[in-house]
């Protein structure tokens, strides 16, 4: 190995160490920012090292790519609203996938041996699926296309045919790499398969999908690493792959569903038998709600995506401060699938200056629920639905939920009586200790704040 090549390899080792150490620091909120910086330094070292490669004779294309990509990335990261983070991550997953597809395809001319050809096909395949899958996920999350599940008769058969087509053309490509037809077939079918994979998945399952696509974008980078024989791509790609898979598992567990169930069945199999719900909905005025809150010593706030839609996180923080001044303990209970991506609620509340040690996970808040005077549900529905515990025929039966109904009183802030994202009835609204605060969440909480001051 010549000395310049050795230098590059050593730089990659340093970069890999920095990535790993950066992820380790992400294990605690106090050190996470430093971890991200370390990871970025690792990336910088890897890029500078790659630029010193002697095979590079023309820097114009590289520079052009950097400038365009860098500008877009920097602008997007400055302008994106925290409510729109799921869309942004979905889109970035897609870009990562497409980059790996391009690297795989461009590496064909230099590819020797069947093993390398197989990895080329894999990077194209995973990259292509990630790209179009992420675009569809982006469309569903930003609601530029309908967020519902798209299913049709014979979908499984069509998908099976696509898979067979991909495998067959991939084999043909590895046998006759000089014939571009098979390459184009693999690319085309992978792109199609990405679309087919995500369209049957409904909006409520999006946290699972973007976690999974996150993982794919890492695996695609990994495969591209094999294709161009580069170990830093393999290390970094597999770290991302592992991260995505773990998040996918957490999301699936939080919905009590298997991954295959999320991917292939959607919520389409909802039984027609309507659940018999007893009791009646009891609305409460803002004024009466205030008297209850004023007397409370322990309040738990359970936010859902509706809080983000109403942009209510800042007034929630204000209410939280007023309650604390009144000598009341306030905690937030965050369900793993609240919001549209893992950890989404936490970021929105952090943006509103809610300290992170006030944000409790479901397993921490549930045992305390019986000592809570008032549980305020803001824009959440399915994650507090007691039907998940009580109604065996409910599509979400068995899903772990935040047991707000064990609190002394439950306030549900809701626009109207429409059912949640998953379209499931919620018996919580009819419980004895539940009071409904109808209207826009931001205005309702604003009203409570005025009562306090």
């Amino acid at each position: 190995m010549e000395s310049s090549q050795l230098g590059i390899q050593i730089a990659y080792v340093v970069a890999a160490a920095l990535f790993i150490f950066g992820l380790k620091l992400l294990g605690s909120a106090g050190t996470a920012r430093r971890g991200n910086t370390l990871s970025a330094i690792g990336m910088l070292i890897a890029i500078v090292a790659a630029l010193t490669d002697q095979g590079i004779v023309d820097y114009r294309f590289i520079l052009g790519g950097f400038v365009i990509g860098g500008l877009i990335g920097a602008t997007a990261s400055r302008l994106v609203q925290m409510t729109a983070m799921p869309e942004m991550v979905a889109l970035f997953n897609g870009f990562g996938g497409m980059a790996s597809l391009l690297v795989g395809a461009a590496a064909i001319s230099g590819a020797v041996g069947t093993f390398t050809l197989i990895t080329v096909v894999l990077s194209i395949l995973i990259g292509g699926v990630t790209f179009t899958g992420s675009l569809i996920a982006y469309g569903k999350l930003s609601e530029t296309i309908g967020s519902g599940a798209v299913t049709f008769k014979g979908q499984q058969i069509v998908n099976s045919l696509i898979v067979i087509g991909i495998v067959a053309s991939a084999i043909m490509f590895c046998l006759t790499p000089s014939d571009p037809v098979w390459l184009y077939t693999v690319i085309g079918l992978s792109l199609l398969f990405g679309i087919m994979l995500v369209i049957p998945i409904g909006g409520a399952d999006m946290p699972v999908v973007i976690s999974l696509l996150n993982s794919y974008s890492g695996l695609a980078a990994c495969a591209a690493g094999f294709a161009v024989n580069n170990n830093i791509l393999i290390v970094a790609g597999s770290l991302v792959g592992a991260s995505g898979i773990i998040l996918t598992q957490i999301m699936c567990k939080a919905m009590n569903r298997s991954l295959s169930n999320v991917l292939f069945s959607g919520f389409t199999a909802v039984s027609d038998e309507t659940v018999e719900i007893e009791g009646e909905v009891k609305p409460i005025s803002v004024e009466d709600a205030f008297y209850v809150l004023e007397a409370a010593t322990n309040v738990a706030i359970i936010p859902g995506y509706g809080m983000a839609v109403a942009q209510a996180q800042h007034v929630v923080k204000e209410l939280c401060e007023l309650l604390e001044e009144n000598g009341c303990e306030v905690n937030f209970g965050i369900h793993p699938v609240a919001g549209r991506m893992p950890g989404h609620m936490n970021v929105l509340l952090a943006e509103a200056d809610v300290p992170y040690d006030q944000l409790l996970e479901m397993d921490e808040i549930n045992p305390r629920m019986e000592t809570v005077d008032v549980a305020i549900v803001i824009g959440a529905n399915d994650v507090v639905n007691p039907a998940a515990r009580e109604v065996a025929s409910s599509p979400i039966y068995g899903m772990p939920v935040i047991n707000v109904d064990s609190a002394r009183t439950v306030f549900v802030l809701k626009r109207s009586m429409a059912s949640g994202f998953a379209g499931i009835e919620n018996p919580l609204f009819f419980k004895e200790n539940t009071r409904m605060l109808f209207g826009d969440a931001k205005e309702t909480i604003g009203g409570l704040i005025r009562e306090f001051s």
Partner: protein
Amino acid sequence: MEAVFLTFILMLSIFVGFELINKVPATLHTPLMSGANAISGITVVGAISLAGTGQQDLANWMGAGAVALASINVIGGYMVTDRMLAMFKKRGG
């Protein structure tokens, strides 16, 4: 042998990845994902050599496209993650 060597690296990094990510608290899952976006932009390293061949053929253009897309992830991913993590504060801090 090369293939075996690379697969070895793959296996070890996956194990390290699982160990590390399992320790990330749920509070930080969104920054974790956007940070992972940034790391998956590592493809830029593979794309650089393909974009710098000076051939000006299709592969060269594809390399340049990959550099652009991966840089979006790298720059955008790290910057937005930093922006988010800066917002996480402790009580009274």
